């Protein structure tokens, strides 16, 4: 298994430009700017099969190709470093350990799409990471890897760091744009789409940190090299973040399609105290939970979709037998209730209602029909709103009820939690 994203992360001063250059940094940018035409780069990214690492898995090259050619108007890149999906902490590793990887990816992307200004939207809580990133950007400016006439190619590009203020919804690309513009973070209705009407009304492409970080490697090694890694439809390595009741939580770079069971038991060292595995959330808090019986599954977009869930951000949350699924539901639904922007009826009201019903079940006020009511509400929240937060709030509840219905019934019958040593909410 070849590491390329994280192979330098543990090296001393990996975040500095010197170390990055020693390890072959900015060669890809130089190659792209000097030897490749913008459209060639987009073609190469398309060919590589790279899919967005922010959760939705949209083909990156295709996204880039939506941007209008020419420079009639300003165009922008937004880099999504909001990383607000609970369970996700992979972009943080990149920002901390090798921010130049991201900067180089941005320069290449900017050149490919004819963009002169990139905004990196950094999660508000990432205070240190934002500082590290800014230092790296300053270094890059000094060496003229950013600014005017980069590599004497005539191409100019600026990068600005914009720090968020702690709202999940600002990780949604149009909410992010509103936030960058200084407005309340609320997703925009579509159409218009960002590639036509983005930041300040100009064409904009938004990609995740890891997505951009993949790009220099594709340029250096070619699309064919990248395609061979991972699975047919989910190419490349990705950084899985595994947390919860495992012995070795953390981030691990692995090829797409890596087996979830192996990730838990081989890579992350198995369950704490060798407890019994109960459930796994495979891709961040919005993805549907998998019961222990279903964890022998490949971690790629298609395999997980077949298993009734999704890859999301590759943030694996592992739960052992002590985890009460009703309480998990309360925690997750509270999060979405708190983070809903409140624009769309179904999401604003639905997130609150789901949470209230779950709390009712927890407190012994639940009725049997509540279980189907949860499913019904979740169903009505799906695919009915401006952005996907409503869906993200519905899916975990659907997953929990689907796979752990008896546990919900038991709660309602007994009027209390019967799980061993369960945590408090």
């Amino acid at each position, binding site marked *: 298994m070849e590491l390329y994203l994280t192979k330098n992360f543990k090296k001393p001063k990996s975040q500095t430009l010197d170390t990055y250059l020693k390890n072959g940094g900015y060669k890809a940018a130089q190659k792209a700017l000097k030897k490749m035409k913008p459209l060639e780069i987009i073609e190469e990214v398309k060919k590589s099969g790279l899919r967005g690492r922010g959760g939705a898995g949209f083909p990156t090259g295709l996204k880039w190709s939506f941007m209008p050619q020419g420079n009639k108007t300003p165009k922008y890149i937004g880099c999504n470093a909001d990383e607000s999906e609970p369970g996700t902490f992979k972009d943080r590793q990149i920002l901390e350990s090798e921010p130049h990887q991201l900067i180089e990816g941005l320069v290449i992307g900017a050149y490919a799409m004819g963009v002169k200004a990139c905004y990196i939207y950094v999660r508000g809580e990432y205070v240190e990471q934002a500082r590290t990133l800014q230092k790296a950007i300053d270094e890059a400016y000094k060496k003229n890897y950013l600014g005017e006439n980069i590599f004497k190619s005539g191409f100019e590009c600026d990068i600005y760091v914009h720090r968020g203020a702690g*709202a999940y*919804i600002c990780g949604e690309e149009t909410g992010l744009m509103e936030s960058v513009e200084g407005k*309340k973070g609320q997703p925009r*209705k*579509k*159409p218009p789409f960002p590639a036509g009407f983005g930041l300040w009304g100009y064409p904009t492409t938004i990609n995740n940190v890891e997505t951009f970080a993949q790009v220099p490697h594709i340029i250096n090694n070619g699309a064919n090299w990248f395609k061979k890694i991972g699975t047919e439809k989910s190419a490349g390595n990705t950084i899985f973040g595994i947390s919860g009741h495992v012995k070795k939580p953390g981030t691990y770079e692995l090829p797409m399609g890596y087996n979830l069971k192996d990730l838990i038991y081989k890579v992350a060292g198995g369950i704490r105290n060798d407890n019994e595995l109960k459930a796994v959330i495979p891709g961040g808090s919005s993805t549907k939970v998998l019961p222990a019986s279903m964890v022998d599954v490949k971690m790629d977009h298609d395999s997980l979709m077949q298993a009734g869930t999704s890859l999301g951000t590759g943030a694996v949350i592992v739960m052992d037998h002590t985890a009460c699924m009703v309480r998990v539901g309360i925690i997750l639904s509270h999060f979405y*209730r*708190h*983070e*809903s*922007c*409140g*624009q*769309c*009826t*179904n999401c*604003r*009201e*639905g*997130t*609150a*209602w789901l949470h*209230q*019903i779950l709390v*009712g079940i927890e407190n012994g006020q639940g*009725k049997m029909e509540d279980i189907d*009511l949860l499913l019904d509400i979740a169903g*009505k929240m799906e*695919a*009915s*709103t*401006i952005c996907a937060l409503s869906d993200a709030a519905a899916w975990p509840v659907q997953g929990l009820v689907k796979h752990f219905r008896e546990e919900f019934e038991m709660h309602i019958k007994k009027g209390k939690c019967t799980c061993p040593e369960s945590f408090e909410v």
Partner: protein
Amino acid sequence: MPTFTINGKKIKVEDGKTILQAAVSNGVEIPHFCFHPHLSIDGSCRMCLVEVEKIPKLTIACNTPVTDGMVVQTETEKVLEARKAVMEFLLLNHPLDCPICDQAGECRLQKYTFEHGIPHSRFRENKKPGRKRFKIGPRVIFDEERCILCRRCVRFCREVSKTNELAVFSRGDKSIIDTYPGRPLDNKYSINTVDICPVGALTSVDFRFQVRVWFLEETNSVCPGCSNNCSIRICHRRGKIYRLLPRKNMEVNKVWMCDEGRNTYKPVGDNHRLTVPLVLKGNKLEEVSWDEAFKVMAEGLEKGKKGDFIGMGSPHATNEECYLFKKLSLEILKGKSVDFEAPTWEADDFLIKKENAANPEGARRIGIKAKDGLSVKKTIEEINEGKLKKMYIVGNEIIRDAETKKDILLSLSKLNFLVAQDTHLTDLCSVANVVFPSATFAEKEGTFTNINGRVQKINMAVPPPGEARSDLEIFGEAAKAMGRPFDSVEPTMIMEEISKNVKGFKKVSYDKLGDTGIKISAK
């Protein structure tokens, strides 16, 4: 021009129209809350979700442009289910207080609940409490519990009044509409937010709890508040007016009107109205019959020399009244007319125009406010000099200015004979020999000409009080008493004369005015 199919019907649509716009203009109803044709698209209420072929998810009709060959279904099971869901969500925390809510009867939430909702609630949790009867501005009351967060009011203050008082604060189910600190909803157009609020969250301080809306009748009219002449509906019941609402007229006011204009109904029903003709007997005005009043008038006006009479019309009078009064003053009474100024106030760049009267433009065009007439100042001088001895004043414009009022009244008291025709008892009556009680804009038929030359019709919503009569009838009787009756005092007949005799009015006739009026040609 794309052609698309909606519920099986093929329709050609203008470029750039959304599904909702196309549906509305073709008689297909798609329920919606947040969409308003004169505000930006919000897309948040999710009530207008429809099924579009080849799009897997339901799509909001308000924000989806029609494309050629698009196939839209608005009544499939999937769509109906989605509407039911939105209705259920909206009603979760709604107080369901229709019986005591002033919006009942004209409430979208209520209407759609009947049409698309489910008749019971599955919500067992406690409803979210909110601020009740909160005075969000001097003329608007806010009930937070009824608010469905459609943000029409927010967009109105941002986009139309451009005053930006309102915003949504907090997020998720804690979202609330509120004003920015220290900036109450106090702009010249604030009551429009009440009109566009689809629920009972925003209600009018003036109108709330006065009457149930389903008892109200509506009569189309024109706001007499300023020379913009916003198209309005007069809402009334049993001879009493309860409110004025803006009426759509893209050429004049779109769908808006100012707060001040909404007050113009108030004088109609107040207790200073003149209801009986009055005649000065000794030093007291006494109530008399119309016959006696006209007899006294004729006797008074017949005395004296040629050329000592002057008539003063009103910028509040209709085109027809201006025309007939001009004939009465100049042709029958052989006098002059006063070149008066309409009262003014502060204009803005939206609806409020400088001249604070219903028809100064019409008065100018028709010539009752004649350029060759005497100015008010000159009129008073000539009265003081004894050159003018008789006068007929319609309205009370002449004493509006508090500074000059006393002197003018003193001068008018020197006249040998003064006829005052007015809707209200004012100080002017105290110096008159005869007082004719007349009708307000809401009690008669006629037309106004706005500042841009648009002629619009007003209609009788309520009868004049007591024995008060329309100005036209009074002029007609006055002419008859002078022995030279007019051919007709019917507004429609007079407009025929106007269109023949007054420059610019050629195209104007009552059957062509329609709901939105006709623009007359330049002078």
